[in-house]
């Protein structure tokens, strides 16, 4: 036991002695959170203003508009076509979104259903287009239902649509689901970035830490360790604990800093601790698995970075998973970050409890078991 602790503490001390560790642990995630969070976030100085023109003037378009208005990243201004042109000319808005007459019916057959007129050099154009399309697609489900209903009831779809949306607790209930949570903390851009970049940088940190397994093996330190009266079990457990503890410390500091600097509310501490631990087990497992499959630290670094970045993209670490196509969302189920993000957003935005993140917890632990099994069964010691 004493030896396990000695190995563990020694590794932790070694980690914190490296300046690069501190940068990797705290500097980078905070910087990224700040940069990305302020691009997408409410707290940002730069807000995007978009003029919104409603030529359709039906319940459908009103619902789409309502949905768009709730967005935090972009502020929409509902005006008529003339005013919109003036605003754009005066550079007071960066673009105009026009919901054309009859888009509700067009939506069923053609795309794009809305026209978009950005000012020159507007970099967020794709984001706006995507948002508008998303908002419409969300509402579109109801339109489709209304059309089918209208066919059967022999009514116009608009009146069916009106009924559905009125009776079904209305669409905003669907869209506002997240913002209606009791604590009333909306999942702001910066919260999302915080959660995402915490995950990514904890992963990178753990990758660099598990790299020490390869370093130690290459430098002959493991060989030497096994000439002393310590067992493999003691060595592995010592290392493993050091990874976990550094991961905890990193997460703890990131949570502390992001909640004081950016006002991110991370939700229930107990549930968070569980989720973070499950994530760390999984990530450390991944690091060990990669370490056991390669020969040099450089290989591990190259492969690891590739794996982490690509799975982070898939897993919705950089942008909400709801923004990607269906196929991608299905693939994302096989990526641990998806589940970590799901767990974290449940905690942050919905003030979830342990019960609410049961599924992510189980899946993450499942990943951990698989990775550790691969890692430990393939690890070479001498």
């Amino acid at each position, binding site marked *: 036991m*004493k*030896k396990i602790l*000695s*190995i563990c503490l*020694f590794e932790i*001390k*070694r980690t914190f*002695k*490296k300046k690069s560790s501190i940068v990797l642990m705290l500097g980078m995630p905070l910087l990224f959170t700040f940069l990305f969070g302020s691009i997408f976030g409410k707290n940002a100085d730069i807000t995007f203003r978009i003029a919104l023109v409603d030529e359709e003037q039906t319940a459908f378009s009103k619902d789409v508009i309502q949905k768009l208005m709730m967005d935090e990243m972009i502020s929409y201004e509902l005006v008529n076509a003339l005013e919109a042109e003036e605003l754009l000319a005066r550079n007071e808005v960066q673009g105009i979104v026009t919901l054309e007459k009859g888009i509700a019916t067009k939506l069923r057959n053609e795309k794009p259903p809305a026209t978009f007129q950005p000012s020159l050099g507007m970099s967020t154009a794709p984001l706006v287009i995507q948002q508008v399309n998303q908002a419409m697609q969300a509402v579109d489900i109801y339109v489709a239902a209304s059309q089918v209903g209208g066919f059967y009831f022999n009514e116009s779809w608009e009146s069916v649509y009106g009924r559905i949306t009125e009776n079904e607790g209305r669409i905003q209930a669907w869209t506002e689901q997240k913002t209606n949570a009791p604590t009333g903390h909306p999942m702001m851009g910066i919260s999302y970035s915080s959660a995402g970049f915490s995950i990514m940088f904890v992963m990178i940190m753990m990758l660099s830490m598990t790299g020490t397994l390869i370093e130690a093996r290459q*430098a*002959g*330190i493991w*060989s*030497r*360790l*096994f*000439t*002393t*009266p*310590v067992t493999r079990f003691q060595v592995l457990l010592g290392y493993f604990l050091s990874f976990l503890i550094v991961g905890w410390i990193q997460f703890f500091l990131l949570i502390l800093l992001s909640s004081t600097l950016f006002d991110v509310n991370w939700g229930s501490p107990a549930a968070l601790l569980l989720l973070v631990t499950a994530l760390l087990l999984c990530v450390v497992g991944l690091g060990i698995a990669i370490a056991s499959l390669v020969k040099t630290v450089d290989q591990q670094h190259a492969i690891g970075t590739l794996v982490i970045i690509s799975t982070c993209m898939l897993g919705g670490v950089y942008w909400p998973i709801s923004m990607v196509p269906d196929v991608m969302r299905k693939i994302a189920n096989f990526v641990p970050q998806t589940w970590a993000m799901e767990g974290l957003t449940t905690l942050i935005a919905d003030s979830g409890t342990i019960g609410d993140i049961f599924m992510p917890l189980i899946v993450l632990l499942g990943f951990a078991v698989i990775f550790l099994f691969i890692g430990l069964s393939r690890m070479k010691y*001498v």
Partner: protein
Amino acid sequence: MLTLTDVKKSFGAHEVIKGISFQVEKGESFGLLGPNGAGKSTLISMICGLIPNGAGEIRVNGKLVGKHLKETKQIIGVVPQDIALYPTMSAMDNLMFWGKMYGLSGKKAKARAKEVLNIVGLTERGKDRIETFSGGMKRRINIGAALMHEPQLLIMDEPTVGIDPQSRNHILETVKSLNEQGLTVIYTSHYMEEVEFLCKRIAILDEGKLIVSGTKKDLNNRLAGGIVLKLTVGTLHPSFIEQVKKLNGVEKVIVQTAEELDVHLQSKMEIVADVILLASQSGVVIHNMQLKEANLETLFLQLTGRSLRE
């Protein structure tokens, strides 16, 4: 202290250690001399329980290695061939870490680390990171780490590879004085001067076999008065070589290059004259001629036909 009985080891189909037996007594300094790839490191790995021995028996203080690994490991201090230290940590931290791996408490490890720094002569550098050290200083800490738990048997695997002569001398002196204080030492090297300087008893290992072993005196007796005549000639005729081999008192003839020939002689100087006579008779022009006294290196050459340092 240490007994090896017919120890063998294969890696796959490649038999690396082909049945080795020897014994090292308490307080001895035992030298294991052999060229690269002879199997020195493999042998040491087996003695310290890092890899299992294929066949035979290794006993440390009577205890079978493999069966009583914990005890035998505690008795031995190993200085590995590679510098197995943490470069970003201080010398002190490194020493304490290895001490703790042998079960020393934090306090004890600290006190002992200071002693060890003193032994290896690096007291002033204790707080500095290993990566700031010269090759020789790293080697000294590498040795120090094996001394932390005050082992009864110190096994050193080529501890002076790639360092400056000054550090090398310091290490040799340190090991010699440790041995004089009662520490049993096994020292492997492919430098015969080191082994000659340090060790009372020497075994020469080649291709996984002990080709000769005994006290320094035994080995010197085998060489007694041995002399090597190094000839540089114009062209070597095979018939000339054959005739030299047949001369009475010539032990071995080794053709080094197309122009170079080593003739190993017993001490009879008159043979030199015979060789010169033979050369002139068979039309071989002698450009240069050197007489060298035999040492362990020439003994190795005699026994294997190869040089220790290829």
